């Protein structure tokens, strides 16, 4: 049985933190010991934590879906039609450069403080990595493959489905993975400003009440949930790209 080597670093960090605080080397008001964070998590678990997690997770899912669903066709269009590329791509690149926090005040102004500005922000966050993934994926398809497809007189649709899509899939899936992790990030940015539920709300809660243990509990949960959703994407990726034979694919899928 292989040792979970990946758990070594976090375990060492937690142990170091616990010992550091107990020995008085680290002030507890700046870094609560892991036992205090565990207590906070236990308390939160029976005081609304499932509601907060659900609120954040649903926001991420909805925003990510919206952003990705917009990015897939637009990315394909820009990749396949040179005129569309010349028209749209420069604007998208400029919009992509705007950092998430810069959008927040504008969206708050236009859409208020309810769910709409949060979902729009998350969708913006998810859109660009997926868009970039689709564009570079399709553009990077080997022309020889397309020629073979044409030799077999495949229709446009069949060409897209049987040649372009599988060849572009690795890049598209990478784009989707990045889009998902950015969606989590943009979700926290949205919740930091004006929220009444969610993990970002818990984070500000901890901050405003001088409860560093709640802050760290929220951060820990965000890390865990982000890792979980990324792990799910990884599984999907491995399933869809099982036919691939590259350096990264070690062992049987």
């Amino acid at each position, binding site marked *: 049985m292989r040792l979970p080597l990946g758990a070594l670093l976090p375990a060492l960090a937690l142990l170091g933190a616990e010992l550091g605080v107990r020995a008085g080397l680290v002030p507890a008001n700046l870094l609560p010991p892991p036992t205090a964070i565990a207590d906070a998590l236990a308390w939160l678990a029976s005081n609304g934590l499932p509601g907060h997690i659900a609120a954040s997770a649903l926001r991420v899912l909805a925003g990510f879906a919206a952003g990705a669903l917009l990015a897939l066709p637009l990315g394909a269009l820009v990749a396949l039609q040179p005129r569309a590329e010349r028209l749209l791509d420069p604007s998208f690149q400029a919009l992509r450069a705007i950092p998430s926090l810069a959008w927040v005040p504008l969206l708050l102004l236009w859409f208020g403080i309810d769910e709409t500005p949060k979902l729009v922000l998350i969708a913006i966050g998810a859109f660009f990595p997926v868009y970039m993934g689709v564009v570079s994926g399709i553009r990077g398809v080997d022309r020889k493959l397309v020629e073979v497809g044409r030799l077999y007189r495949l229709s446009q649709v069949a060409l897209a489905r049987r040649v372009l899509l599988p060849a572009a899939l690795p890049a598209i899936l990478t784009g989707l993975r990045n889009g998902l992790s950015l969606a989590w990030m943009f979700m926290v940015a949205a919740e930091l400003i004006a929220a*009444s539920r969610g993990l970002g709300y818990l984070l500000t809660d901890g901050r405003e*009440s001088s409860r560093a243990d709640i802050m760290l509990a929220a951060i820990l949960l965000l890390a865990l949930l982000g890792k979980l959703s990324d792990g799910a994407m990884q599984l999907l990726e491995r399933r869809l790209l099982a036919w691939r034979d590259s350096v990264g694919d070690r062992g049987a899928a």
Partner: protein
Amino acid sequence: MKRRSLLQLAALSTLPVTAARAAPLDELRLDYAYYSPTSLVLRHFGWLEEEFKGDGTRIKWVLSAGSNRALEYLNANSIDFGSSAGLAALLARANGNPIRTPYIYSRPEWTALVVPKNSPIKSLRDLRGKKVAATKGTDPYLFLLRALHSVGLQRSDIEHVSLQHADGRAALEQGRVDAWAGLDPHMAASELEGGARLLYRNVSFNTYGFLNVREEFLASRPNETARVIKAYERARAWTRANPSEAAKILSNEAKVSLPVALLQVKLRSDFSNPRPGAEHLRALQLAAPILREEALVKPGTDLDKAIASLIDVRFARPLVART
């Protein structure tokens, strides 16, 4: 020979004493805030810069947008002196923020529950199920909770939206929230210029302006702390003698109109008793249960101990003239 060695001995014995006087501070860091008019007066006239010029100490002023910010900066050792509401300071202290309060900078009525002009909300009970904006970790937020508890409601009976004070006012005036736990000067501005109405007022639910100092700073730099308090006393005396001019300073700094500033300084602030004492201890004791009831502190926290360790009733005694 004997006298010389005696003199040498005397000289040597005074050396440790002079060496024990600590080196002057490089930098003294304080906050200033629109909810603390005397801090604005003090900063405006540069009396602290004047006081510490001889020592070569730089004075650094940091704007605090609310008790929550000032307490956060104190916790992180970014400022030495921070202004906050009393109950907010207690919350912070009870949660491990190492601060003490040697001075009270004002007794204000700075918070109330505000509703927009034509709001259908007429009483506290009407707040059930409504959206209320309040800045977590500040007096307005705790005021809101205490007001709700007074009619049998709880935080979970309303939808609390966490917004900093100025944003809360904007949200109220844009109709995005149904009510707002306001703070002066934003609240006064909203009343006079936005037509907002005060739904619920309660002077005794306002918990004073506490000038907090980091415990470690108070212990290692009592001399500097005393000099800061003396400078604040100078600002307090000037403000009591010149309230309209003080309002003008507030109006310029906070970018509010003069009537708004006058409302805050003249009608809603009392600068007569800066010495922490029984009055302030009592106010916190009455207010403390809300922290436990709304689970803002860890279960099992000894709030009486926190109050006793927060308020320092002795430090300012020799520094404040009885008025």
